[in-house]
C-alpha cells in the first residue's frame, strides 16, 4: 500500500538514468564581480537575429535596449552592464559559430531608470492580458531551458487553439545542473507570482509545477508556499532523463501526447521553464529585462562547484575563475549539461540567455570510447523517449537514405542523447540522427 501511495508519475516510454552528480545543489546563488568586457550576441534565441541600435563609442546603462527584435519570432536584447560600446563584430558564441555580438566595456554599475532593483515582493498583477505579453516581448524574455524560444510567442495562443494548463518546468533532468533547483529554493514566492502572471496572460486556471523527486527540499518548500496561490499545484516526478523535454513532461503530468511536428498548445498546454517564469516576474513586476540569469559552474575536478548570478555576455572563463579556476586535467568544457550540452571550442565565448550551466569534464571522462559495430541489441530503441528506432535511422542517415529516414519520422527526434548513452558499442547515434535531420530539412528546401 505504501508503495502504491509513493508511486510517482513519469513518462512511460524510454528514458535513461544517468548519475545525478548534482555537486552544486547546496551552494547558494552568489553574485560575482563584473567582468571587464562583455560580448552580447544579437542572436541568443530561435528566430531572426535582433537589429543593433547602438554604435561603437555609445554609452549604455544596464537594462538599456541595444538591439531590437526583427519580426515576431525574435527577441529584444538589452545591455547587461553599464559602460561604453566597443566593436560590433563577429565573435565565436557558445554554438561554436561566429555571430555578430556587441562588445561593451564595463564601467561602473549604473542601471536604466524605471527598473526596480529592490528585493520587495510585488504580488498584485496590475497589467492586463495583452499588456503582459507586450511587456514580456519588450523585456526580451526567452525560454531558459535550452532552446531559447521567445516567450511571447508561446504566450500568443494561435486562433482556434486554446490552453487549459500551464506547466512550469522545474524538472532539471540534466545531471550536474542545479540552476533551476537553487532558483526554486531561493526565489519561491517570485516564481509563484511569475506563474500567476503567465496563467493570467494565457487565461488558464490550472498550473502545475513539475519537479523531479531528487529535489525534495524544493518540492516541500513550493508545496507549502503554493497554498496561498489558487490554481497552482506542485507535482513530484520520478527521476528519469529526459523528463525535462516538453513532450515527455506533458505525457508524465497530464498523460497527453503531443502529435508529431506539433506543439504543446495542440494538446492544450503551454510549458515554461522556472528560469523563464522568474524572468517573467522580473519583467512584468519589476520592469527588469532578461539580462541576468543563474548559471551553474560545476565539474568533478572543479575546486568550488557553484551557482552564480551571471550577466548575459560574461565570458565563460570569467565565471570559471570565480569558481576556482580551470582545473589542470580539463578535457572538455561543456555549455549546458552532459547529455545535451555542447562542448565549447573556445572558453572566452559569452554566456547567453539560455546557458544554464558550464560543465568542466576531466580528461579521463572526456574522450569518446572506441566505436564498434551495431549488435542489434535494441537498447537504443528501449531508451528512446520518442519511440523511434535510432540504430536503424543512424544507418539510414549514414548511407544517405534521407527520404526513408523522413518516412520513419526522424524529425521527431529530440536529440536527447539517450540512445548514444545506452549504446554498448559506443556508436555516435545522436550525431547521425542530427545529420539525418539536417539533410531532411534540406530535402524540403
Amino acid at each position: 500500500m505504501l508503495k502504491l501511495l509513493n508511486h510517482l508519475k513519469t513518462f512511460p516510454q524510454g528514458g535513461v538514468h544517468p548519475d545525478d552528480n548534482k555537486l552544486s545543489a547546496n551552494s547558494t546563488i552568489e553574485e560575482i564581480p563584473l567582468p571587464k568586457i562583455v560580448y552580447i550576441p544579437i542572436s541568443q534565441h530561435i528566430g531572426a537575429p535582433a537589429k543593433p541600435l547602438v554604435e561603437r563609442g555609445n554609452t549604455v546603462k544596464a537594462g538599456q535596449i541595444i538591439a531590437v527584435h526583427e519580426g515576431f519570432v525574435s527577441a529584444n536584447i538589452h545591455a547587461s552592464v553599464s559602460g561604453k560600446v566597443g566593436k560590433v563584430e563577429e565573435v565565436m558564441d557558445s554554438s561554436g559559430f561566429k555571430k555578430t555580438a556587441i562588445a561593451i566595456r564595463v564601467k561602473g554599475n549604473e542601471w536604466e531608470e524605471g527598473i526596480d532593483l529592490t528585493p520587495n515582493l510585488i504580488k498584485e498583477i496590475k497589467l492586463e492580458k495583452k499588456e503582459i505579453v507586450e511587456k514580456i516581448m519588450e523585456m526580451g524574455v526567452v525560454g531558459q531551458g535550452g532552446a531559447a524560444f521567445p516567450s511571447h510567442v508561446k504566450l500568443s495562443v494561435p486562433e482556434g487553439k486554446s490552453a487549459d494548463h500551464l506547466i512550469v518546468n522545474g524538472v532539471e533532468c540534466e545531471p550536474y545542473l542545479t540552476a533551476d533547483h537553487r532558483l526554486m529554493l531561493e526565489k519561491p514566492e517570485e516564481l509563484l507570482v511569475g506563474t500567476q502572471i503567465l496563467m493570467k496572460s494565457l487565461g488558464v486556471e490550472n498550473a502545475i509545477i513539475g519537479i523531479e523527486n531528487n529535489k525534495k527540499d524544493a518540492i516541500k518548500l513550493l508545496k507549502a508556499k503554493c497554498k496561498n496561490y489558487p490554481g497552482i499545484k506542485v507535482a513530484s516526478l520520478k527521476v528519469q532523463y529526459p523528463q525535462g523535454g516538453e513532450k515527455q513532461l506533458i505525457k508524465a503530468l497530464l498523460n497527453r501526447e503531443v502529435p508529431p511536428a506539433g506543439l504543446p498548445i495542440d494538446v492544450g498546454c503551454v510549458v515554461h521553464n522556472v528560469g523563464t517564469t522568474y524572468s517573467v516576474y522580473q519583467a512584468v513586476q519589476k520592469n527588469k529585462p532578461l539580462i541576468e540569469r543563474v548559471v551553474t559552474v560545476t565539474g568533478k575536478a572543479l575546486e568550488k562547484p557553484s551557482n552564480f548570478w551571471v550577466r548575459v555576455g560574461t565570458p565563460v572563463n570569467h565565471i570559471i575563475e570565480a569558481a576556482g579556476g580551470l582545473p589542470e586535467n580539463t578535457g572538455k568544457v561543456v555549455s549546458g549539461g552532459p547529455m545535451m550540452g555542447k562542448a565549447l571550442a573556445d572558453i572566452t565565448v559569452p554566456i547567453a540567455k539560455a546557458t544554464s550551466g558550464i560543465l568542466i569534464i576531466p580528461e579521463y571522462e572526456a574522450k569518446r570510447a572506441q566505436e564498434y559495430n551495431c549488435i542489434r541489441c535494441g537498447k537504443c530503441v528501449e531508451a528512446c523517449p520518442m519511440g523511434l528506432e535510432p540504430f536503424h535511422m543512424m544507418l539510414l542517415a549514414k548511407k544517405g537514405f534521407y527520404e526513408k529516414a523522413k518516412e520513419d519520422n526522424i524529425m521527431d527526434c529530440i536529440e536527447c542523447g539517450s540512445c548514444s548513452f545506452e549504446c554498448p558499442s559506443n556508436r555516435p547515434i545522436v550525431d547521425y540522427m542530427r545529420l539525418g535531420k539536417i539533410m531532411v530539412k534540406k530535402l524540403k528546401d
Partner: protein
Amino acid sequence: MSDSILYTILSLSALGAISAIILYFVSRKFKVYEDPKIGHVEEVLPSTNCGGCGFPGCRAFAEAAVNKNDLSELHCPVGGNEVMKQVAEILGLEVEERDPYVAVVRCSGSVEYRKKINNYDGASNCTIAANLYSGDTGCAYGCVGLGECVDACQFDAMYMDEKTGLPVVIEDKCTACNACVTTCPKEIMELWPQGRRNRKIFVGCVNTDKGGAARKVCEVACSGCAKCSDVCKYDAITIENNLANIDPELCKLCRKCVDVCDVHNIIAVNFPPKKERPPKKDKAPVKKEEIDIIGMVKKDQEKKDEA
C-alpha cells in the same frame, strides 16, 4: 508401366502447350514497347551509375537522351566527348564537344599552416562536424579533414594526404562526376576545366573573412589584397568578399599572379618548373624600383582620394 510414362509425358506436354498459349496472349496483351535505342545507348555508357550527369544512373540518362531527342543539355562527364559522340551516332544527332573538367581542392590550409585550436571528438563525418561548429581550426571556411569526399568518390580518384590533412585529387582518375562537390559541406571542392595540357591555375582558398582575420587563423589564407588582380592583364581575376577568384575561361595561364601572391596560394598545376632568368644588369633594377615606388605612391593616393 509404359502407359504411365506415356500419360505423364502427354499430360505434361499438354500443360506446357496450354501455358505457352496463355503466356503468348498475356505477353501480347501486356507488351510494353521500349525504344531499342535506349538499350543501345545504355551499352555505350560507362555503367558507373555515378549520377554525375544529374540522372539516377546510366539507364535513366539513356532514357532521357532517347526521349528528349536532344543532346544539347545532356553530358556524361565520365565518358566524356567520346562516349557522347557514340551516343549521338546511335541517335543520329549532333553533339557539341565540351571541355573536360576535373575536381580541384580549393583549400591549402594544411596542418602546418592552419593550427588546431581544439580537438574534434565527434562522429567522423564532415557534414556532422561542419554543422556542429565552425571547426577545429580557427578557419570556418576550410577543409574539415574527415574525408567525406574521399568516401563519396566512386573512382578512387581521391585520397587524404596524411601529412597535410587535406584531400588530394588524382587527375587521371577523376571523371568530374561532381560527387565530391555535392558532398563537401564547406564547398571547397570545385570542378575546373582541365585546361590546355592539363594546366590550370586557381586560388587555394575560399575564406571570405577580412584579410587580417583570415590570415590570423591560416598562414596561407587569401586576404583579398588584389595584387593578383592588379597584375592580371586579361581581367581574369576578380576580388569579391575579400577573396580572389580566377575565371578559368579568361585565364591565359601566364602565371604572373602566381609570382605576386604573398602567401603562394595561387596554385599552378602541371606547369614545368620556371626557368631561372639570367641576372639583370646592375642599373636596370634600380630604375625599376624607382618607378615602382612612384607607381605605388600614386596608387595609394588614388585609393585615398576614392575613399
